[in-house]
């Protein structure tokens, strides 16, 4: 292995890792460091690239660009069977032709122990390390195929690798002989692994006679028996029932403490992530949104997506109107986060931070209960304050027909920088038919917007200051606000169709992200719910599209 020592404490480092499937970028320039011995959870909705990340660490997928380092050595080009990493698969993937014992022993029977070779005189035997040379050659081959990094960087790194290869081929190193483990050694380890997962009695059972929970344990025993440096778990509890899942969560956590190796756990269940992890990595759409401890992620979400995904929360559009004063729900609240005045921000309020009262008090807002759900230890209320909905929790049983008063204290208000409020399409253009093409879709737009105070005739010729301009084939930048796009289920007469990527509820509306077939993203505001992966049609409010010409105006004069 090529030793590029960088971080001592990081067991896994991913540097600018990009993965593309059939032209779709699943992972986009991911940078990630995972500390030794931690229980790390990669959390995100389905299709966000979390499983792909795990599969790249395991070696089942090779990144199209970037490197994966294990303890500082580059393992990107090393096949899965030579990585000291084992996986617990989503549906366990046990071998049905083997019994419990043989399933667990499977890895050990393949494992070989390196024994240093010695010459007859007892001195260490030296040989050219052909394995290492092969790895380096594979790395060179991979790097040559990389189309993403700059040619300069590629050149530098290739030179570095060639140098390494020369060095490797010219200096002999300690030679090893590889030995299989004896059946006694295997037996000892299998018994130990089975006792770790509490399956001591079941060694001779057929896999098909085991319950889901027992199969789960076999899968874990099978993976930990090879003493990997990292255990990868790909939504391993997904197939279990709720109670079993809760028990297994605690057990996994204890197992992690007992074995002491790094666990990387992939799940879409935020509660699972919060319960078990030391560190949570929240991912969406191939990009890491936030990395932090469970407390940190829950209390200080970095953006609306994280806040919405972790726990239930109230998210509102708000404006900072003074020093630590923010306005939302038609009301001014004191807060603790500092933001510049007049800045538009997202505000997050956790339901448990909304204080309720059935009698009016100072600083309390009046609202109406829209719904009340009994949740075991508390009630969950949805309260309407004007047009905005506020989710709240309380152990008190309030009368649904009476007004309810709410208070949000400064420490319960979390402000976040607002992102992506406008849709900007820098590669739109004007066609020969004088229509604006956004995402290859013609839109009959008022071209007089290209120049202030100009007029446009029926043929699409713009007149300004007695000069005429023909903008056919001109490139332009089109901007449209999320609230000027209408989204509907009916795709038949919509000019643009796309797939819903995610949807965040903001008090009285949803902000949804729609991706078209051509990979253009549209942010849309809508009062209706849409689910991820719904196919929707988009209609533009034509008069609201802003246009700006790219290039010199004089080129288009006629």
């Amino acid at each position: 292995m090529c030793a590029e020592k960088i971080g001592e404490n990081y067991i896994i480092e991913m540097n600018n890792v990009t993965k593309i499937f059939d032209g779709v970028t699943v992972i986009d320039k991911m940078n990630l460091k995972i500390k030794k011995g931690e229980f790390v959870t990669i959390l995100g909705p389905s299709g966000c690239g979390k499983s792909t990340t795990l599969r790249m660490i395991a070696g089942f997928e090779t990144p199209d660009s970037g490197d994966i380092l294990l303890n500082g050595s580059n393992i990107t080009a090393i096949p899965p069977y030579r990585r000291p990493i084992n996986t617990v698969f989503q549906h366990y993937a046990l071998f049905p032709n083997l019994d419990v014992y043989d399933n667990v022993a499977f890895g050990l029977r393949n494992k070989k122990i390196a024994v240093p070779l010695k010459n007859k005189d007892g001195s260490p035997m030296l040989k050219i390390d052909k394995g290492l040379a092969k790895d380096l050659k594979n790395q060179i081959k991979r790097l040559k195929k990389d189309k993403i990094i700059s040619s300069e960087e590629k050149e530098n790194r290739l030179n570095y690798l060639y140098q390494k290869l020369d060095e490797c081929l010219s200096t002999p190193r300690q030679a090893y002989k590889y030995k299989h483990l004896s059946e006694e050694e295997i037996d000892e380890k299998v018994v130990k692994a089975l006792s770790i997962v509490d399956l001591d009695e079941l060694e001779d059972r057929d896999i098909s006679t085991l319950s889901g929970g027992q199969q789960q344990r076999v899968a874990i025993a099978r993976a930990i028996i090879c003493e990997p440096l990292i255990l990868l778990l790909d939504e391993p509890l997904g197939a279990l029932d709720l109670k079993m899942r809760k028990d297994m969560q605690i057990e996994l956590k204890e197992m992690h403490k007992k074995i002491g190796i790094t666990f990387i756990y992939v799940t879409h269940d935020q509660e699972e992530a919060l319960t078990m992890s030391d560190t949570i990595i929240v991912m969406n759409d191939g990009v890491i949104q936030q990395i932090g401890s469970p407390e940190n992620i829950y209390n200080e979400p970095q953006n609306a997506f994280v806040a919405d995904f972790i726990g239930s929360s109230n998210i509102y559009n708000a404006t900072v109107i003074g020093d630590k004063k923010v306005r939302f729900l038609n009301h001014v609240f004191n807060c603790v986060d500092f933001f510049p005045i007049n800045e538009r921000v997202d505000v997050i309020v956790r339901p448990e931070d909304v204080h309720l009262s059935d009698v009016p008090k100072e600083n309390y807002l009046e609202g109406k209960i829209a719904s009340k759900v009994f949740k075991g230890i508390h009630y969950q209320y949805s309260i309407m304050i004007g047009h905005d909905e506020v989710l709240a929790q309380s152990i008190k049983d309030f009368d649904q027909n009476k007004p309810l008063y709410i208070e949000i204290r400064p420490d319960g208000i979390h402000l976040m920088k607002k992102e992506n409020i406008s849709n900007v399409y820098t590669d739109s253009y004007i066609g020969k038919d004088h229509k604006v093409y956004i995402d290859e879709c013609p839109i009959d737009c008022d071209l007089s917007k290209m120049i202030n105070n100009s007029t446009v005739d029926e043929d699409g010729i713009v007149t300004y200051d007695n000069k005429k301009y023909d903008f056919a084939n001109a490139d332009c930048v089109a901007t449209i606000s999320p609230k000027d796009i209408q989204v509907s289920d009916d795709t038949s007469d919509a000019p643009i169709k796309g797939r819903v990527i995610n949807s965040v509820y903001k008090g009285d509306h949803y902000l949804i992200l729609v991706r078209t077939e051509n990979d253009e993203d549209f942010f849309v505001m809508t009062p209706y719910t849409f689910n991820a992966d719904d196919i929707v049609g988009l209609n533009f409010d034509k008069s609201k599209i802003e246009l700006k010409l790219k290039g010199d105006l004089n080129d288009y004069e006629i």
Partner: protein
Amino acid sequence: MKYKYFRKGLALPFALFLILFVIIPILFIIFYAFTDNQGFFSFDAVVSFFTSTTKLNVLLVSILVGLFNTVLCLLIGFPLAYLLANPKFNKNYVLVMLFVMPMWINFVLRTGALRDLLSIVLGWFNTTNGEHPLFCTMVGMVTNYLPFTILPLYSTMLKLDKSQIEAAQDLGCNPFKTFTRNIIPQTLPGLVSASMMVFMPTISSYVISDTLSEGKIMLFGNSIYLSFSNSDWNGGSFMSLIMLIIIFIVMFATKKFQGNGSERRLSAW
């Protein structure tokens, strides 16, 4: 109640067919095998079969040719089925059809065509079919039985559990070990049924060897056919009985494999 009787009644045509064309003929074979040509009980056919080295030789050659053909068909069919079941390689069903299509043409015609084709090819090397009887027979056997190997293998390959393959790699199997320790066990039911589909008919086939080797290779099927055409009903029947016994033995030996394999797969997933 009426409904129940009606449902059972549906099986009647098949039961009749079974009795008329399977059970009764088998009884006839047993009867003829242990009687002489006057219809009296005798072991003549048994004795003459086991004392004739030619007939025993033919049986041995047939079994060897059968085994050889099975191995060849599996060697060619297995990778082919693997490729066909891979959606990247075989985007639609067309390629599978290509391999199955020959089965739609009458097999005697096909064999005749193959004989002429072989004689042209061998003509280029200045030899004839008759000079290479084993080669020609094997080519005929493989082309004829390959579809029977591909189909059962193809259907098990479609069900191949990719995550098990990944698990094997994850647990330290290099590509070769992954193949022997996981892919082979996973496809075992298909391998067993493919072998059965090839081995048994090869032993009893006679048109292929007869047509392609110009009568120089005699298989068990040829020798049964010969007995009957020489009106040696008792000898032919006894050899047919041997054939049946071999079939039963093979079926019994592989039953465990096939049943268990598919049951396990179903219940595990």
